[in-house]
């Protein structure tokens, strides 16, 4: 806890980490055990994959499923509307909102 922690692991069984700062591509973060290299930029408050995640697998945050992967997700990849869908309700999205990592998503 000396340097600012760039990511949070909210529960030990989680397969995503939470960025606590705007993190650039190539940034190295740690989940407390291993190092993970960011495959793309991840904004503050957003999720990145802690491990490779199979298509259809549950995304676990707070130790609970928050939806399912809509495609395979690589370790260090940003996890958001483009690769994660609710198991309950479709998420409302404003027209023009960035939903893929190719678009500008940094707030």
């Amino acid at each position: 806890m000396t340097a600012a922690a760039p990511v949070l692991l909210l529960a030990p069984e989680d397969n995503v980490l939470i960025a606590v700062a705007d993190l650039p591509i190539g940034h190295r973060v740690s989940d407390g055990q291993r190092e993970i290299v960011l495959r793309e930029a991840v904004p503050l408050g957003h999720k990145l994959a802690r491990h490779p995640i199979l298509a259809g697998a549950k995304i676990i945050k707070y130790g609970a499923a928050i939806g399912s992967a809509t495609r395979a997700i690589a370790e260090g990849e940003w996890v958001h509307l483009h690769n994660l869908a609710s198991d309950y309700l479709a998420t409302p999205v404003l027209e023009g909102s960035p939903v893929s990592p190719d678009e500008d998503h940094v707030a």
Partner: protein
Amino acid sequence: MRGWLRQDGRKGIRNVLVVAYLVECAHHVARAIAERHDGGDVQLIGFPGCYPNDYAQMMMERLCCHPNVGAVLLVSLGCESFARGRLLEVVRASGRPASLLVIQEAGGTRSTIERGRAWVQAALPVLAAMPTTDLAPGELVVGTICGGSDGTSGLTANPAIGRAFDRLIAAGAAGIFEETGELIGCEGHMASRAATPELAAEIVATVEKAARYYTTLGHGSFAVGNADGGLTTQEEKSMGAYAKSGASPIVGLLKPGDQPVGGGLYLLDVVPDGEVRFGFPNISDNAEIVELIACGAHVILFSTGRGSVVGSAISPVIKVCANPDTYRRLPDDMDIDAGRILEGRADLDTVGAEIAGLVEAVASGEPTCSEALGHQEFILTYKSFTPAGPACLPARAR
């Protein structure tokens, strides 16, 4: 910790004289009686409606007989339909000094204010002379709520409150969390934490009820802007709020005014039963706080990211600030700086322990920021509920 022992065996952490108006038409007179005293020992509550409502009647009874309340002055206009005689009877039967002033019978505004002030002047020394007794952590009831949330709420303040809940409940306290409308998607997880299969079924049903109610109102919990902050799904947003509940088993499901049966974690169902009537379930955060207090909560843990400044009548509110920038902007209003987790200056366990420690300090008399600033918000509106079934409180059935 020390508390005031009430006739029903519960102990209060404050000894407040409450002035309660029973219709909006009596609000000015009640306020004029209460406002002489800005030390926090005389507080104003009330119900604005003229038409009868069982929920409001029950809520006023529970609030006037809350363990933090030592004496009660009721102020009625005279022609409203609130059952003032019954409320007075209930408060007197609880052993508290109580009186009723009816403006239409007391000679109007000036005369009622004078009589009310005289009654308060005479009652305050009686309150001050009431003895205190030791209060154990296991006698506390703690509620939690979030308001003015942002993307940091679910990362810092809410999970830290969850850790504090785990500590307080392990020490024997009762913890209450709420807003089933914000827990849509968590019902399966909550059911898996329920003490009995019957309680699990009640929890799932109550979240389904909330989902139906909000759908009828055309009001969803997930706002488009949530996605900008990093939230992807409804259940993810719900989990952020749900994190306040910690990891203890859920031992009961309460409706407003129901009292916990011993220690443990309880879910409070704040969404009315039956068809949609009277509009939104809770029109603002304080409506939820009042319902937690009616369930006996001595103190409220309030998580905020954007920066709510509210307190409450009757029970102290501890503000846990999720966002480090907000904490720096509103330092006088915030009791706990949970946002420093984001800056690597603390972890969830440290902040959780700090919150649990502050609950004990506040229960020992230390004022919260909102108390020191004079906040005493209160709101009570129309609602209707059917009583909770026996499966909701397994400990009572035993």
